[in-house]
């Protein structure tokens, strides 16, 4: 049984003053474990985009980081409006961001596509009115991709 490390982070929707802190913490943890810089960067991008989606759209949610010998995984689960058309949301440039979000520099429609681009495994499930579950795995050993 391989060892793994797990850490759970709670995120509140609309909490813009703390937005980004979870992904900073995740990235610092990975560096202390000795995950390679290139992988840390990919996970940093994934966790930041996921965290911002949560802050912008959800009521509340959590990000679960786990690290094993082979891979870093992120499970993001939120309570929120859900995504009516996941395939559409995955398209680059498609965005439902409000003018306020755009004013803050978000809403280029690159969030989910960026997450998928940086993931080795990617899964998204969403239920309108309930929330969205996202799973991302980033391998950190060449032979385990």
């Amino acid at each position, binding site marked *: 049984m391989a060892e793994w490390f797990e850490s759970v982070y709670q995120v509140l929707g609309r909490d813009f003053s703390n937005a980004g802190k979870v992904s900073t913490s995740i990235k610092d943890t990975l560096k202390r474990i000795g995950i390679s810089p290139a992988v840390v960067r990919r996970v940093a991008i994934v966790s930041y985009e996921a965290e911002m989606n949560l802050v912008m759209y959800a009521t509340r949610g959590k990000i679960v980081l786990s690290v094993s010998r082979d891979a870093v995984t992120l499970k993001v689960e939120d309570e929120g409006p859900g995504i009516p058309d996941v395939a559409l949301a995955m398209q680059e440039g498609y965005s439902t961001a409000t003018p306020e979000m755009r004013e803050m*520099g978000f809403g280029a429609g690159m969030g989910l596509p960026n997450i998928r681009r940086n993931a080795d495994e990617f899964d998204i499930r969403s239920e309108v009115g309930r929330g969205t579950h996202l799973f991302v795995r980033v391998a950190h050993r060449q032979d385990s991709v």
Partner: protein
Amino acid sequence: MVAQYHHSLRFDVDRCDGCMSCMRACPTAAVRVRKGRAVKLADRCIDCGECIRVCPRAAIVPLTDQMADLSKFEYKIAIPSPALYAQFDSEVFPSMIFSALKQCGFDDVESVSPACDAVSIATEIFLNEYRGQYPLISPFCPTVVRLLQVKYPELVDQLLPVLAPREISARDAKLRKSRETGIPPERIGAVYITPCPAKIVSILEHPGMEHSNLDAAVSICDLFQTLAAAVSRVQESEHPMDVVESASGLSWAFLGKFPRSVPAENTLSVAGLPNVIRILDDVEKGRLRKYSYIECHACPEGCVGGCLTVENPYLARGKAIKLQQSLPAGCIADRRDVEIAYRKKEFLMTERLASRPLRPLDEDISRAILKMKERDRIHADLPRIDCGACGAPSCRAFAEDVVLGEADRTACVFFWQRDIANRIEQLANLVKAQQEAIGGLS
């Protein structure tokens, strides 16, 4: 193997009384207090000098050179940081400061302004031709470079590989003086008049270069008293008027609205380490890709806020802005000359910048994972008020020190109290059990 890095400050154990001011101020958690004395963790220290600012006993000594150390050079050229001018009132022109520097024992003085303007052009050319990851990050502050090498190793490739103006000035001045005087360049000393200790680091081991063109650095605060006295003796008539300064060169000393070296479009400038760290965190998360260039100054307000200056950084900045108004506004470097020199790679670092990330909890990932779990377990058990009494700057840092075997858990007074209380209870139970056993006998 642990590489040894050069540092620009020394902790004086005889002066240190273990007050923890430096430990609390250190932005990279590089200080511990052990046995009542501050200790520096060399691999974490980025030479920012925040500890020098806060130490009430002057126990942190910058390793800048003293004037007496410079006698080994046959010919000495002072290269003042533009921050030096901002220490004086704006009626004191750079030319007067140059004369005063000569009275202080320098054979010649070289202004960095022409090199500042030239480096701005070189940066512009580089940015125009660059096709890698954005944003690029300015490499002129040695503390920022070290911060990236230690804390953001994956961003090191985004450091602009252009040399700082002080390096260009030092190289050009030494060659020119050698031609004029016949003294070989290696016997000429290029001495930076520095606002901070970090420049020492880039002189001892210049990132991306085999060696620095500068040979020594004297701090503004060490020199100030002598220099100010010399300035007051300089007569208007005697100071040479051929000093080349420019308003844009002077702007390198402080945080501007836009980066000093490139057009304002899609660029940012940031000053103060906590702010620089926040910006680099955002770069790492991919948030700032639309910016082409970010200029980072470790000190508040830029070099005028260096810990080895004498004037309040905000006053110094005000004085510099006022002085700028009496200096020529245009660029004093010749664009064609710079382009030719740029093609000859005279403005570029010669080696790839290396990162030097902090050693993880363990070289083996499985063991590092175990240690990380242990760290979190210990941390959850601590009061999490970051009181510092254990000699670590935060409960988290302490938990990590314990896991790494560098601190004992009983150094936490809260843990220790609980530990003692538990032992007393165990002893009491033991006594009770013993009494019952004896009671049973009698």
